């Protein structure tokens, strides 16, 4: 491009060696460099957004579009527009209600203790331990274990008849827990898997925030005679507020989208989350709906959008509550 153009502009310069040419060339360069400053940052971020548009935004928008149509099973294209019928089906489905409460229950049983333990764990790791790096790395270990492998281990721990926990209970004369039949027991088992995996991860994030707190704050508190516990509540917690909000919001989103653990925990042939849907979560509901007899994809699409709105709603409430709470503790 440049090569073919160069002679022409050189010719132009020869023909009219007067004042006009040089400034126009300068102007062109000037404009280029201005464009460079103005537009190239966008060009650099563009690849990400293009990829996001293809694999993130487009499926989401198309899912929304699809949720208003019918699509016969095994058909190769969607059918006519049906309005809000798919949403009505999902919202009146008893299984959906069950899945909603299951998700909520598992979420509370996992996220709440997980964040509390992670924060305490981070505070303990933020002290002058020997072999600090080793301790810090080891709490991340569960996170690098593949979820499927973890599910196998926990499957052996929580098996109804031959499981480790039940054998221990049996050995000390306590009744066995029906891990897959009882709703609360199944939630606890699944929440245990989630907590095992994510607590260390969250603890490291919180730890990073704790290390950014100026040490002189603690020295001053020490001189004033504040106990370690008091320091934790009055210096550490208020100082890591933004990080706490981040951890709470991400674990809320993760908790509401929980899929792998309950799915692998499931001993049912059809993976419905227990024979009585005791631990079917909303994402499992979306997945299973996509396999049913009538309008599988549109109904799953509607369920996915309802799930999306629920998550946005809860994340928002979460954010507001945390902020209000942290503000009060600051003042």
């Amino acid at each position, binding site marked *: 491009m440049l090569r073919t153009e160069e002679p022409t502009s050189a010719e132009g310069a020869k023909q009219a060696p007067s004042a006009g040419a040089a400034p126009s060339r300068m102007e062109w360069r000037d404009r280029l460099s201005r464009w*460079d400053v103005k537009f*190239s940052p966008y060009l650099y971020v563009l690849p990400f957004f293009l990829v996001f548009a293809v694999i993130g935004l487009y499926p989401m928008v198309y899912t929304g579009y699809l949720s208003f149509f019918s699509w016969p099973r095994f058909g190769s294209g969607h059918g006519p527009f049906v309005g809000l019928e798919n949403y009505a089906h999902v919202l009146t489905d008893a299984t959906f209600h069950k899945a909603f409460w299951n998700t909520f229950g598992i979420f509370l049983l996992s996220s709440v203790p997980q964040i509390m333990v992670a924060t305490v764990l981070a505070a303990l790791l933020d002290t002058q331990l020997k072999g600090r790096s080793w301790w810090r790395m080891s709490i991340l270990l569960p996170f690098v274990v593949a979820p499927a492998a973890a599910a196998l281990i926990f499957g052996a721990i929580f098996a109804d008849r031959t499981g480790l926990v039940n054998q221990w209970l049996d050995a000390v004369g306590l009744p066995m827990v029906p891990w897959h039949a009882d709703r609360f027991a199944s939630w606890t088992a699944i929440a245990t898997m989630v907590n095992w995996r994510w607590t260390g991860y969250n603890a490291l994030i919180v730890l990073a925030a704790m290390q950014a707190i100026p040490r002189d704050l603690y020295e001053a508190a020490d001189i004033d005679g504040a106990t370690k516990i008091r320091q934790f509540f009055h210096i550490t917690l208020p100082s890591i507020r933004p990080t706490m909000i981040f951890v709470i919001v991400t674990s809320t989103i993760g908790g509401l989208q929980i899929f792998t653990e309950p799915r692998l925990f499931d001993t049912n042939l059809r993976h419905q989350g227990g024979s*009585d849907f005791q631990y079917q979560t909303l994402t499992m509901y979306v997945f299973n709906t996509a396999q049913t007899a009538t309008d599988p994809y549109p109904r799953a699409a509607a369920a996915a959008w309802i799930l999306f709105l629920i998550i946005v709603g809860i994340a928002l409430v979460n954010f507001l509550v945390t902020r209000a709470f942290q503000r009060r503790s600051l003042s």
Partner: protein
Amino acid sequence: MSKISTSWRRGLAAGAVATLLAGLVTACGGDDAGGEQAKLGKDDVLTITTFSNFGYEGLIKDWNADPDRPFTVKETVISEWDTWKQSLTSGLQAGTGLTDIVAVEGDAMPAFLAEGASDQFVDLSDPDLEDRWIEAKYLEGQTADGKQIGYPTDAGPEAFCYRADLFKKAGLPSDRESAAALFKDWDTYFATGEKFVKKVPNTKWYDSTGSIAQAMLNQVEFPFQTKDQKVDADNPELRKVFDTVSKYSPTLSTQVVQWKEDWMANFTNDGFATMPCPGWMFNNIKDSAPDVKGWDIVDAFPGGGGNWGGSFLSVPTQSKHQEEAKEFANYLTNAESEVAASKVAGNFPANLEAGQMLAEENAKDPYFNNAPTSEILANRAAAVPAGVPFKGDKYSDILGLFQQATQRVDEGISPDKSWETFLQGVEGLS
């Protein structure tokens, strides 16, 4: 220097954008290729997907080793049907991504025969082949307007397998001929079971509630849907099956889920004494309990006969080698192939001639106390009532919900409540 590097960077960015855009354009324009057929050469590959164990490995190996073969074949084996069903479904919906031949499980076939689904499959009708298979089985692969979308591979006529050693322990007649009387109808079967568990308290009578429920409901003419595909699950016959298995769940059933670890474990720890046994189950028992002695097969089935399983080979229209696929599906379901597959996988062939060949050989199985397996299966196949049960387009879906309902009872939920949840689930299907 800096000027060069800026322009270089600019070029790079522009190039990246161009590549991405090109990628987008090709990605969007990729789905116009359907229908075009391509002839296969000797080393071109025809693909086939099966699930579980079809016994084709040796057949395909021999085919590929033959220097005169018209094309090469590559088989993908998926371990369970439910997993394969999901990929098959999404492959059909996407209109791409499936192999040239796909194996379809018999219970799911009715759903693929439905309008909208059947035109995704090639019509395999061939006047020369019409009398090749057990008629009832052949018709199960045919739509209402006569389009044949599957060649039957095997059938699942059910006998009963039992532990002769445990029968002896309970004081029951244990040899094959006299034990048959205990399996003449369901009432006798359950009554014997109650006697059995009193004598041998640590062993249950049957392997799982699900297998007995399935055996019983497959003797109901219209278990889930009426002839015109109307869903009617709340009918007295089905409820009777449900109430019967619910009643015996605490006393006679192991209350475990079929195919799972606890169920497997019961094969070796004397967990149960009897189980419904289609031909393909023989190998499952041998694999699960290689060292257990005492298994035998009785040439009887409560309530007459029953069929469990049996699959088809189909060719999706998205295949680019439909002619060759049809040819190879034909080859895999001819008498010699079905005999060979049956010997590997234990399936009872749907091919009539293959059934005869096996009966003439009259092989006896030493594992099952020298039971004449092919003779028993041939007799059991003759006892299967034609056209029962009627399988509507939602048969497989409702069957899944029904199995789940019996599992709930096993886990301690009241039968009435479980039935209610079942009906709710059935309603959600339409």
